[in-house]
């Protein structure tokens, strides 16, 4: 079992519905976000290429955030989901400093918070909130270890990239390009 995501950059329109769905589903405090939209424009006018991505924690295979946590609050749960136990977090910020994607933030209640792949929904067989609301169906969530899952098929048949592979974190969110 290895949860992961495939996100189709050709289908994403950057509507931010995933961001709002996440904030509502997970009671993310006002002014914060666990996922976000990044737009890149590359090239020189008039030869411009645009890419729109929905980004979040990459639930990496090699997790610097878990490694640097001094209390063990940051941990990897079943299926490779990276989570923070709020009661064990002292808010030292080591995991925030160690994340090349800056995917974590200090919750105003004094602990570090991040994307959980909506594991409370996944447990019940549902997709994460961001995936379930996407109006263009550009996100696929599932088990990367299962070759028959939709996400595995997308990763196998399409050209993919991960973010900052040079950071050596082995991200498990694949962008279809």
């Amino acid at each position: 079992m290895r949860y992961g995501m495939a996100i189709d950059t050709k289908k994403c329109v950057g509507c931010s519905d995933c961001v709002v769905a996440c904030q509502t589903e997970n009671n993310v405090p006002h002014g914060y976000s666990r996922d976000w939209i990044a737009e890149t424009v590359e090239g020189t006018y008039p030869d411009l290429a645009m890419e729109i991505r929905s980004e979040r924690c990459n639930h990496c295979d090699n997790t610097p955030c878990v490694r640097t946590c001094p209390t063990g609050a940051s941990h990897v749960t079943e299926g490779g989901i990276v989570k923070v136990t709020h009661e064990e977090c002292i808010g030292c910020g080591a995991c925030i400093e160690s994340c090349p994607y800056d995917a974590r933030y200090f919750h105003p209640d004094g602990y570090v918070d991040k994307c959980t792949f909506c594991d409370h929904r996944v447990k019940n067989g549902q997709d994460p909130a961001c995936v379930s609301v996407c109006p263009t169906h550009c996100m696929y969530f599932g088990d990367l270890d299962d070759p028959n899952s939709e996400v595995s098929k997308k990763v196998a048949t399409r050209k993919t990239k991960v973010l900052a592979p040079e950071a050596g974190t082995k991200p498990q969110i694949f962008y279809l390009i």
Partner: protein
Amino acid sequence: MREELITSGRMNPLIDPYLNAWHWQIPLYLFLGGLAAGLLFFAGYFIITGKESKYQTTVKYGPIVALGAIIIGLGALLLDLKHPAYFWQLYTTIRFDSPMSWGAWVLLLTSVVSAVWIGSYLKEAFPKFGCKIGFMRKLLKIVIVEKDTNSWDWKFNWLQKFEKYAQDKRKAWAWVMVVLAVILGVYTGILLSAFNARPLWNSAILGPLFLTSGLSTGAALLMIMTKNHIEKLAYSRIDLLLIVIELFFITHMFMGFLASSEVKVEAAQHFLGGDYTVTFWLNVIILGLIIPGILEALELLKFKIPVIVPGILILWGGMMFRFIMVDAGQVIRYLY
């Protein structure tokens, strides 16, 4: 020229537009930790080499300042935590992968060992019970009895026994202290270098560099503290040597960055023409290393130099070095 423009909708406080999760507390703590490591290293070192009679200030008073620095540093660390009431969770686990976990334990051990050290020298350092402040007097009287106006003793028998034990085994304590001081000094650098997400910090040389800088600030403070001319001169020589080593390490740090991947080349550019150039070269290199180095070299050539000048400059350079590294390290990031 191909250019890439990235816009992100994320605006998390303390994370965007650039990371500033760590503020003044961490660099202050790194400075005080390094200073304490330096002070304790020299205290232990001169006991091991049997030169304590020449280095009275180092051995007797240095560790007192070191413990004070550790306590203030720990206070700063506590202020940095977003949930300070949970700090004790650091001590419910040992995580070998996490430099911060190492640091928490090393700081605890160092505080205990330096407290024992101070206790074993307390009678020599303060032969008279001259405390005038009322509540301090009462506090000290819990463990201390005043024998007459010129001497005092521990109130409890076991404290007297422990003092004797600590005094008899001084060399063993010194070894423990030197090892702990080196770990503490290296750790202040490793804390930063363990984050591969921050290209500026992710350099293995930061450990030895921070240790050298810590030893140098420790030597500078001892040079200011001591009234003994021989001790002063010795530290001015030690500091000169450490300054040269530090310059060597800093050169190597930048050489390493420039010969590395794109993000690290960019990290180095911030200091070689970029926005941190003036702050870094003026405060750390010129004021903190080169000028005190020249002053100390002049002193060796028998010029009269008031030690307070190079001493303060070295301390200033050491502190600015940590503030700049922590600040710049957070600004410089991976772009994808």
